[in-house]
């Protein structure tokens, strides 16, 4: 049964190889090959899942050793897969949602002449992501870690002819690289501390190491997580990443890749548990990010950017939960899964809307779309309800648990974190309602105005038969796109309830992550009540602002906070000024230094020797008598010196 694990990765990898090397002759069927491969992987996943369910909780860990990768003395890196409950959960999420999005893309990318390559990249991503969650040691995980980074780079920059896309891709990769640096340092620390970096021994002996070392390792892992999961301070890339095609945003930048950070933290739970300081930092990062993302989400008029902000903040929730330790691990993962469903659904919905609106992304040019694209409206709506945590839907259960856990942390920090979580919930409700209202309700602001966003790619489907200045006529997307949305909608409605039924998700994961009930100062009921209140407040304000009065189709100047939020709270500007400009100056001056100083020294010596030569040359003035003088002097010196030598 273990041997199946490799196939999980192999299938999409093969697909990627075939599609990328296959050349034009595969254009016709490429997308189907891709979808097939990911579905195959999903099927393997399901089989393995069934197999795991067959075993009892303790033996639900499958190990598959493939080959020895890098053997250098004590440094032994193997290519070994580990399938346990945690990775199983991810496998199902990745392959499941992945396959759906493959299907969706078949329709969405229909008119793109590079569709084959797109599916190749998607498969590549699946392979890397599966490698990430299946790896049995940190180095192999690192491979998957950077692999997904590469895939996201390729996919964000898929429309490379758009400079903005290329830049966004590069930015994403670079910011991720900073995080990866953390991961690699963490691995080195592990090797220096434990002499290995395989999950088993490291996590097993975590407690033997000094706390200082562990804290260091944990913080480095956190840095990595921040990079991948767009947590403050490395969140800046996620917004720009929306340059990629919408399915990409749905799969990579909502459902799966960005949650890898959470996976890393939960997976390394043993280390974090032994390093409370690090855990505190994790929670802080989570809390900050969940507010940060939420606030940014409120201000964005670009529907995808708004959703991106919300993704950020939702992952903030997960990180917060993960930071809480055994109290929170399970719920972090649970929220991760449910979020995977509804956020993917929301993005697909957004994609479908854009599809119908000639790739218009500005929500101020939407409005009243519900009667034009009903399916999209319903699925999107369900996703909306799920994310704001409407009672009974999946978001409700997962998020609620996290808030409880936050309070359960205990002490002042418990209160603070809990409060943040609650506020976050309110803001979430607000900006999601805003998105909902601006998109599907209100008067139809897209009427009688050309809304072809200037740098929208010619590759985009609608553009093909729509002229430059044409008024959009919204229409429902084809089946191949709506079906995945419907499936995901189901997920976002029922997943939470299903998981929570008798805490089955808890019991499923517990063997891996461990679990402990904190001593919550508040009863579950009160927390739920508080959450509800926040929710109502948020929705109410949003309705008051966007439901009652018409939405201006050009953004008003807005308050200082709003303007800051539109610019990602100026964090990008900071990067630009400090890092980009500073970097440019640094490199330019270094180039100068290299040319003048380092090279100058050498050339200078050469020149000075030359000059000396020129001067000494003058002595050779052609007059025999001056030569005689030098000889005479020389002789005199010679004699004198010889005598002197004897004297001394």
């Amino acid at each position, binding site marked *: 049964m273990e041997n199946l694990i490799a196939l999980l990765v192999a299938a999409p990898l093969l697909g990627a190889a075939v599609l990328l090397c296959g050349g034009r002759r595969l254009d016709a069927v490429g997308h189907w090959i891709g979808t097939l491969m990911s579905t195959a992987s999903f099927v393997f996943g399901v089989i393995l899942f069934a197999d795991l369910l067959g075993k009892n909780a303790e033996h639900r860990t499958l190990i598959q050793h493939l080959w020895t990768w890098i053997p250098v003395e004590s440094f032994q890196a193997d290519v070994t897969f580990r399938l346990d409950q945690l990775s199983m959960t991810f496998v199902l999420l990745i392959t499941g949602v992945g396959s759906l999005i493959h299907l969706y893309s078949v329709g969405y990318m229909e008119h793109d002449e590079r569709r084959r390559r797109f599916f190749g990249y998607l498969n590549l991503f699946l392979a890397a992501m599966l490698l990430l969650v299946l790896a049995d040691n940190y180095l192999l995980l690192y491979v998957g870690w950077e692999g997904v980074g590469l895939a996201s780079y390729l996919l964000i920059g898929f429309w490379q002819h758009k400079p903005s896309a290329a830049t966004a891709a590069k930015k994403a990769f670079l910011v991720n690289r900073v995080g990866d640096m953390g991961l690699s340092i963490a691995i080195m620390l592990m090797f220096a501390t434990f002499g290995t970096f395989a999950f088993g021994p490291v996590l097993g002996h975590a407690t033997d190491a000094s706390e200082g070392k562990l804290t260091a390792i944990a913080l480095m892992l956190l840095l990595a997580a921040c990079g991948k999961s767009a947590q403050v301070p490395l969140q800046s890339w996620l917004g720009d990443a929306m340059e990629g095609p919408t399915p990409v945003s749905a799969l990579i930048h909502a459902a799966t890749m960005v949650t890898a950070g959470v996976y890393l933290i939960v997976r390394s739970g043993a280390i974090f548990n032994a390093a409370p300081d690090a855990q505190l930092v994790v929670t802080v990062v989570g809390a900050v990010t969940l507010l940060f993302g939420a606030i940014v989400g409120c201000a964005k008029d670009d529907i995808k950017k708004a959703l991106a902000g919300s993704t950020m903040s939702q992952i903030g929730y997960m990180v917060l939960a993960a930071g809480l330790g055994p109290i929170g691990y399970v719920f972090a993962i649970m929220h991760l899964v449910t979020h995977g469903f509804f956020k993917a659904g929301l993005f697909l919905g957004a994609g479908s809307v854009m599809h119908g609106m000639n790739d218009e992304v500005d929500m101020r040019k939407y409005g009243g779309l519900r009667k034009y694209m009903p399916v999209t409206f319903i699925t999107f709506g369900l996703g909306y309800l799920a994310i704001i945590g409407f009672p009974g839907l999946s978001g409700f259960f997962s998020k609620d648990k996290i808030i409880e856990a936050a309070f359960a942390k205990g002490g002042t920090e418990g209160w603070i974190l809990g409060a943040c979580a609650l506020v976050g919930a309110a803001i979430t409700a607000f900006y999601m309602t805003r998105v909902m209202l601006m998109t599907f309700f209100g008067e139809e602001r897209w009427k009688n105005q050309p809304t072809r966003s200037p740098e929208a790619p010619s590759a985009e489907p609608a553009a093909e038969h729509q002229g430059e200045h044409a008024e959009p006529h919204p229409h429902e997307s084809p089946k191949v796109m709506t079906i995945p949305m419907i499936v995901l909608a189901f997920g976002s409605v029922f997943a939470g309830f299903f998981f929570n039924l008798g805490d089955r998700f808890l019991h499923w994961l517990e063997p891996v992550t461990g679990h402990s009930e904190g001593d919550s100062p508040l009863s579950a009921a009160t927390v739920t009540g508080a959450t509800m209140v926040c929710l109502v407040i948020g929705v109410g304000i949003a309705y008051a602002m966007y439901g009652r009065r018409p939405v201006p189709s050009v953004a008003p100047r807005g308050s200082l906070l709003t303007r800051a939020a539109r610019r990602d709270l100026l964090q990008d500007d900071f990067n630009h000024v400090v890092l980009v400009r500073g970097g440019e100056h640094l490199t330019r001056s270094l180039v100068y230094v290299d040319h003048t100083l380092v090279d100058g020294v050498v050339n200078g010596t050469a020149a000075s020797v030359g000059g000396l030569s020129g001067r000494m*040359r*003058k002595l050779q*003035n*052609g*007059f*025999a*008598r001056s030569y*005689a*003088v030098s000889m*005479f002097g020389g002789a005199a010196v010679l004699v004198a010196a010889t005598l002197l030598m004897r004297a001394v």
Partner: protein
Amino acid sequence: MNPVNYLYLSALLFTIGATGVLIRRNAIVVFMCIELMLNACNLAFVTFSRMHGNLDGQIIAFFTMVVAAAEVVVGLAIIVSLFRTRHSASVDDASLMKL
């Protein structure tokens, strides 16, 4: 008379000759100065031979004369041809090649 004085004399002559080589322009004169130096050497040889009481020095003096004579032959040949070409025997005029 103390033969050492002759040594002093020869040293003096040698120096005079050398100085002449350094300060005089006319190739012929320069050449004569060199001859003077050679003669100074001869004087030294003879003196030493006298001091040592063996004849080597005097014999060597003869050899020196012969060599000097040969030198004169060659030297004059060269200097004369130079003079005929340039109509001047000044050493300083012959400075085409420098630097």
